[in-house]
């Protein structure tokens, strides 16, 4: 069964300043008839440039925003308008990792409070106490478990993003939504977080909805790819098909614009590295 499915999602926003006393505001359609399927253990990347609607789509699928129309199915169940206990079940199943680790971590809370917060909000029993759970979570994301008492400001950007991932993992989610989760990181740290996400997915088997504008990053992590522009999905397919033989003109334009290191330099560098 499909883990998470979006059917014909539409999201309209009212345009500020266009409403009159008896006149409704003009509508801007941020997401326009978007459908996708996400399976367990797989990573679906939503790629596109700014304003393409990729983040809004992710927020609709994670029930962080309400749809204007369309359907969100979780394990085949319609959760589009889920409330109360039903919504709580959605929150247990879907967790989100955001772009800026520092602005999504409360600076006045210790790491222990931060990573166990989802469990407390969802009023779940915490076996062995929050300290033990927090330490186990930190170990899983490659952080020192003795640092549970520290505050976010005491960590580097890459470490803070690991804390964000630990918090998302706390409830044992089956869907992880990563919204530009590695975009703000230095290239060496970015590589570590991509590796971590790949390893965790192998161990936990969660499905991952990966929102990114960086196509080279997507190439490293995605199983399948949906290319968005102006609120619509213009192309979707297996990763290697989309990158190797893009069908839509926009996908081709996007791929052509990515700066590349010359292949002959890359080949020479590999030869030289072996010789060294």
């Amino acid at each position: 069964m499909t883990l998470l499915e979006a059917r014909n999602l539409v999201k309209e926003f009212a345009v500020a300043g266009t409403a009159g006393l008896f006149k409704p505001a003009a509508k801007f359609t941020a997401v326009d008839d978007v459908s996708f399927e996400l399976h367990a253990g797989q990573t679906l990347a939503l790629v596109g440039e700014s304003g393409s609607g990729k983040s809004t789509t992710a927020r609709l699928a994670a029930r962080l925003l309400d749809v204007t129309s369309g359907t969100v199915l979780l394990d085949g169940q319609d959760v589009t308008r889920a409330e109360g206990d039903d919504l709580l079940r959605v929150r247990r199943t879907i967790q989100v990792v955001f772009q800026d680790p520092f602005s999504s971590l409360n600076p006045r809370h210790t790491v222990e409070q931060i990573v166990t917060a989802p469990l407390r909000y969802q009023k779940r029993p915490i076996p062995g106490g929050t300290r033990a759970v927090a330490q186990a979570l930190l170990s899983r994301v490659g952080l020192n478990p003795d640092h549970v008492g520290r505050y976010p400001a005491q960590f580097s950007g890459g470490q803070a993003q690991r804390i964000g991932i630990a918090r998302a993992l706390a409830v044992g989610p089956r869907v992880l939504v990563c919204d530009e989760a590695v975009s703000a990181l230095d290239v060496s740290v970015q590589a570590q977080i991509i590796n971590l996400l790949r390893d965790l997915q192998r161990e936990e088997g969660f499905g991952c909805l990966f929102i990114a504008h960086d196509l080279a990053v997507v190439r490293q992590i995605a199983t399948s790819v949906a290319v968005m522009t102006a609120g619509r999905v213009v192309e979707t397919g297996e990763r290697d098909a989309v990158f190797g033989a893009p069908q839509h003109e926009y996908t081709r334009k996007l791929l052509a614009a990515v700066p590349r290191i010359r292949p002959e330099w890359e080949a020479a560098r590999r030869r030289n590295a072996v010789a060294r």
Partner: protein
Amino acid sequence: MSLLSVRDLTVRFGSSAPPVVDGIGFSVPAGGALGIVGESGSGKSMTSLAIMGLLPPGASRTGTVFFDGQELTALSERKMREVRGNRIAMVFQDPLSSLNPYYTVGTQIAEAYRSHRSGVGRRAARQVAIEAMERVHIKEAGRRVDDYPHQFSGGMRQRVMIAMALSTEPELIIADEPTTALDVTVQAQILDLLAEVRRDTGAALILITHDLAVVSEVADNVVVMRHGNVVETGSTEQIFSDPREAYTQALLDAVPRIDDEIASLRSLGGDL
């Protein structure tokens, strides 16, 4: 002779803290393109600010910077102002915060020009602004010269900044992460524009960026920085095909490739 030559440049905040730029040196020939690459905290932006004499309060600079035979580090602030924004122009990452929202872009380009060309009237300067905007391919420049910054998209604002930089016909353009805030298709357009400008005007370029692929496409020579030091300097081909230093090798290994899935992206030690 080099157009710009930097020797033993050091920048520090306070006397006890370790320097953020630690005795570095490099040079740029007339018409050349130098890429300075490094991760955050490597000192690459501080280096460009130190060259321009634009360091933030509390920072101090030692070492020498020669530009066209003139020692910039020995110039008074008044003399430096004749060089900065005139013979050496800068383009920053975020064009919106470099432009004043209360003035039209035409006024801003014209005033920047007039501040370096005494005796030029407003009408003549406005004409210079329109021509500069045409040169960076802003359509209907004669009309858009009267638009405000918010009426331009991010890529168009960066074109305005480049137009402003070009208006005084500088010999050197220092561009600090000029495309980092832009979408990839817009980035490609701006990089093409910078290449075209260099071809047409013969200006030299220092491109400061964290993006190794961008540097590989733009620069003739590359300086790799880390923790305020120059790790390695070489031709772009040498740096990318035969890096000598372990850090450069590791940095190149960590770059995600669009053509290839790497089994495990190599990551650099140190910052967990």
